[in-house]
């Protein structure tokens, strides 16, 4: 008898869990979907979006599956947001977003699932560069074009992807050097001997290689690169390296930090050494990435300039998709627009920064 009661209880418990267990995944999305649809409808004015028509319109939407790395940094989050705001129904898109939690195997699963959902385009921001041949081949066989965002893939056959979208690190380096030369001219120091040190990123990272190369190619004759060392893209390491630079070289005019975090570290080191930096100070600080904190630092008068590494790939990818939809072709490498933000503009721009 006891057994019977128990089994009835268990069955009830099981049924309950089934409801909640699956309910989480199935019933909850409904309100989320309508929530998202609502602003989209508002954005499309005058068009009556009756339910029946909506269903018909669903077929006309370009379905894009985005296999994102994860949400490990502000840059990444801004990148995700840019896709979520660009690929909305008002623009004729439906976005299926997948966060891979920094795992390649999750991205492979997501791409397979996108193929089964018959998306029109797959956008992939690969976690790693390696191991994509098999699954991209599957996408190709299903006739779905793959657009890479941010990082490249290492595949034998480059027809496996349509194109790559990302920042041009070499140009960022060139822009930084270009800004410095202009700045020195306006300061009347164009003929002066300028001593520069560089805090490099993690050696071998494409941002490090490109930025170092770009800056070196635009060095003026009067400039001397005293030293380059890696600060591994971190604030603490950047500070450490800058401290040793300051001890070693008494006369540093410019420090180039290959990302904002290292620049923050360098600024701390400069101040700790009793020197000043920024537009009013002894040392010119040049940085890359242009995160929001960099603008705050410029407003505080510590940093001179930051060169953008634009995470807002969404609009660019959308352009590419429109070109492909129109039957056009695109180059294999597509850069996003990137700006140079000197300190004097910081106060005006900080409000618009998304990241």
């Amino acid at each position, binding site marked *: 008898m006891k057994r019977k009661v128990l089994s009835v209880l268990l069955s009830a418990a099981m049924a309950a869990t089934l409801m909640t267990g699956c309910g989480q995944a199935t019933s909850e999305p409904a309100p989320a979907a309508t929530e998202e649809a609502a602003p989209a409808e508002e954005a499309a004015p005058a068009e009556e979006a009756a339910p029946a028509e909506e269903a018909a319109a669903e077929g006309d939407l370009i379905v894009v599956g985005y296999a994102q790395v994860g949400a490990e940094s502000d840059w990444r989050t801004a990148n995700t947001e840019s896709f979520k705001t660009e690929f909305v129904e008002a623009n004729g898109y439906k976005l299926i*977003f997948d*966060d*891979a939690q920094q795992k*390649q195997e999750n991205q492979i*699963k997501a791409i397979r699932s996108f193929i089964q959902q*018959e998306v029109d385009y797959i956008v992939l921001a690969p976690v790693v*560069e390696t191991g994509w041949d098999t699954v991209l081949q599957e996408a190709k066989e299903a006739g779905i074009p793959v657009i890479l965002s941010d990082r490249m893939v290492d595949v034998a056959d480059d027809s496996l992807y349509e194109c790559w979208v990302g920042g041009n690190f070499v140009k960022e380096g060139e822009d930084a050097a270009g800004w410095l030369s202009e700045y020195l001219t306006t300061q009347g120091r164009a003929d002066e001997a300028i001593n520069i040190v560089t805090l490099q990123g993690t050696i071998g990272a494409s941002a490090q290689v490109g930025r170092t190369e770009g800056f070196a190619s635009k060095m003026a004759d009067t400039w001397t690169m005293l030293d380059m060392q890696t600060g591994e893209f971190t604030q603490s390491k950047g500070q450490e390296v800058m401290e040793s630079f300051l001890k070693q070289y008494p006369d540093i005019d410019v420090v180039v930090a290959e990302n904002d975090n290292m620049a923050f570290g360098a600024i701390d080191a400069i101040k700790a050494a009793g020197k000043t930096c920024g537009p009013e100070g002894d040392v010119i600080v040049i940085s890359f990435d242009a995160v929001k904190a960099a603008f705050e630092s410029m407003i505080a008068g510590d940093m001179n300039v930051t060169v953008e590494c634009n995470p807002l790939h969404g609009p660019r990818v959308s352009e590419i998709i429109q070109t492909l939809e129109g039957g056009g072709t695109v180059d294999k490498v597509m850069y996003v627009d990137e700006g140079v933000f000197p300190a004097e503009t910081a106060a005006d721009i900080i409000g618009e920064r998304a990241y």
Partner: protein
Amino acid sequence: MKKLKKMEGNQFLLAITIILFFVMYIIGMIVFGEKGFSKTQVFLNLFISNAGLIVIATSMTIVLITGGIDISVGSVVAMTCMILAYMMENKGVGAVPAVLFVLFIGLVFGLVQGFLVAYMKIQPFIVTLAGMFFARGMTAIISTDMISIKNETFLSWAQAKMYFPIGGYVNKKGIIVNPYIYPSVLIALIVLVIIFIMLKYTKFGRSIYAIGGNEQSALLMGLNVRRTKLKVYILNGFLAAFGGFLFCLNTCSGFVEQAKGFEMEAIASAVIGGTLLTGGVGNVFGSLFGVLIKGTIETFINFQGTLSSWWTKITIAALLAFFIILQSVFAKAKEKKK
């Protein structure tokens, strides 16, 4: 008769897992039917993407039945992938010798862990924790680069599609897509069946259950507990490397961060499949369904398209809690009968 009744509870747990999987899948077909959830390929993808995990979960089940645990498997998978990639790409070793070598490494790894657990009487958790750090560390020592496998033989294994003649569909672009699997799926299922038979019908398999049920009485029954445990860990090391090989067929690359948390997915799959962490109870087919349930949840979230993928973890947590409670209820009921 008594024996039959005793089995009932465990069979019931397994049945719940299987029913749960099918119910979830059917719900998926109803909710996401228009989006293509009911395609044969979606089902097959569960196996394609999880071939490695099926083998790892199977071997984890054996270890759990003895009352042990192995949290080193994720790192062993990463090390396996790295050794394969490094040997084939940087040293020019052929695919077959490279695979044989990693399987051998797996055996040795299992032998060492097994010796420490069985003969030195050290807690399996601690031994395999050390193993986890060691294997992950070795992966980084071999190379901190990401290595892409381009070996033609290996890629031909990885990309050899086995098509099914039926169940195909014409996609939006007018391309006929027949359902397919990769050889890794077939291999994983064969391993599963072999282990199932081994556990059920061999002396070795029955001693594993006996040891896990009650080590003391197994000893009194004259079973060689230490040797059986050693064998289990050797087998487990081998299967971890083998699962790593199948995993590598899916990712075709080696890098340090690979397969992080894989051991926990294997343990979760086994528990959802009805394996008791206290030992003595478990079924490898249950673990297979545990893996499939995890895969189904992931597919759900992906098809839904806007929900955070972290909901997978939360749902698994809910399922785990449910099954653990269920198990303890059963254990209590059993005690009362005694």
